[in-house]
């Protein structure tokens, strides 16, 4: 009996398995290479910044030209900016995303809108800052204020919220729309009662990621709302405010004799802020995915 072809087949099968193993290992290695620097940064900052963290650090006003005391005004300022940005960009972004996915026909007008959104997402953040300075601070005369900064950040956040909303709506199968309409629902009733609830986790994820990016940015608020130092908390939306990212820039470059632990501590607070938002987004996404049945 001639076993040659059989043996050859077996040998090539073993080879294929080896190649597959090697491939998997290569992919694992690449993943590790990507994760390690991020992990390194986080761990390094955590170690260096942890000694600065105390209740006073996050709840007190700065003292001694910001060389001591806490960073409360920067934390509060960042929260204000986040809320302001959300108030403007969430309703607008969701409305635009729903329009694009459900109502817009495929014509030159919607294509133009889409191109605008994509381009908007690619604009460098300092350009937003200058644009906000021109439009909100000077033209609308809102001055250097939380409003101007929040509006500027909103423009930056909008493309993220619009595209994730559109994506999330589109990922809900078309057949549910047909069913809703066949049962005597209008398009909007079907969207509101059936499609939107299914898309909501995706939309919320997009909102969090958009806002998270906004609160971490320095350049857009540099000329529009951030201030070097404020002896009190901002009392109206027309006030300028301190904010974590800008504060980090200030204390690491502008103040001689700044204790290094305070610098790392401030960075750590911002990092925790951003990572926490990221984590919330991931949890929402994975929960929704586990619950989804279609």
């Amino acid at each position, binding site marked *: 009996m001639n076993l040659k072809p059989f043996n050859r087949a077996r040998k090539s099968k073993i080879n294929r398995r080896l190649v597959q193993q090697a491939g998997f290992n290569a992919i694992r290695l690449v993943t590790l290479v990507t994760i390690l620097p991020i992990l390194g940064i986080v761990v390094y900052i955590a170690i260096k910044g942890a000694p600065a963290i105390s209740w006073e650090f996050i709840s007190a006003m700065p003292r001694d030209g910001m060389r001591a005391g806490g960073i409360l005004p920067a934390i509060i300022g960042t929260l204000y900016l986040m809320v302001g940005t959300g108030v403007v960009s969430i309703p607008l972004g969701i409305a635009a995303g729903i329009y694009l996915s459900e109502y817009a026909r495929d014509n030159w007008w919607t294509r133009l809108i889409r191109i605008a959104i994509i381009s908007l997402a690619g604009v460098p953040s300092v350009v937003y800052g200058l644009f906000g300075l021109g439009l909100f601070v000077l033209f609308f005369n809102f001055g250097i204020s939380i409003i101007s900064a929040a509006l500027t950040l909103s423009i930056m956040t909008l493309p993220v919220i619009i595209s994730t909303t559109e994506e999330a709506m589109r990922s809900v199968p078309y057949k549910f*729309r047909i069913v809703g309409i*066949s049962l*005597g*629902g209008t398009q909007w009733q079907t969207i509101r*009662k059936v499609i939107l609830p299914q898309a909501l986790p995706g939309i919320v994820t997009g909102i969090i990621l958009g806002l998270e990016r906004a609160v971490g940015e320095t350049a857009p608020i540099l000329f529009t709302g951030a201030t070097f130092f404020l002896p009190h908390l901002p009392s109206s939306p027309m006030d300028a405010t301190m904010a974590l990212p800008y504060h980090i820039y200030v204390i690491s470059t502008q103040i001689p004799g700044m204790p290094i632990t305070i610098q790392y501590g401030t960075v750590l607070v911002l990092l925790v802020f951003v990572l926490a938002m990221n984590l919330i987004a991931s949890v929402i996404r994975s929960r929704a995915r586990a619950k989804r049945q279609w």
Partner: protein
Amino acid sequence: MANTKISIRNLRLQYADGKTPLKDISLEIYEHQINVIFGPAGGGKSSLIRVLNRLIDLSDVHTLQGEILMDGMNILEKDLDIIALRRRVGVVFSRPIPLPLTIAENISFGLEVAGMNDKNKIAERVEKALREAVLWDEIYDRLDDPAYSLSGGQQQRLCLARALALEPEVILLDEPTSALDPVSTAKIEQFLEKARSQYTFLLAPHNQQQAARVADNAAFFLQGKLIEQGPAEKIFFNPKIKETIDYIEGRFG
């Protein structure tokens, strides 16, 4: 002879991509009977069903000509209240498509969008519809479970129930048992037998056996044309036209 519920006259449908699934169809659909349209795939059955409750409006249509008179009113009229029409003409699709809601919400959706707010009244209608669709006894204790927790056959009866909840006059069934096992199929057919006298059915059956089992009237569709129509026993056992004879005897299709 029964009354005509829907009278289709010279109906022609062409999609924007050039396909013409309905070519000059004239067909009578009789009240309180099971009207069956059958024939090989691509014959125009699904398209006809989509025209009858104007779901066709969701597609890119090039031309839609002719008349469809339902109780004397042309449902192809431009200024027709399409939503009112869809409440009068319910549809069950070939695959169960529950909405991603609870069992009860699947049924109450149609009632709520029609403006019904009274919770007790809605609950009443939900129960009535589920009983009618032979599903109540299996699921009455888990109305708030997700609809997708039901088996395929139960899902399809849920889809039937939510159409029934709107108390339609006409029910369109587009191969409603094609994704179902024999037991579930039998339950749907039981419903058809029982409900025959209350509704007007237009059924594109899953196969010819089903057609012969339930039909009062039958119409044979082939490549967008209506070849032959008449009482079911005549069409299935004594057809006159060659294409119908060939199809029924299994020479093609």
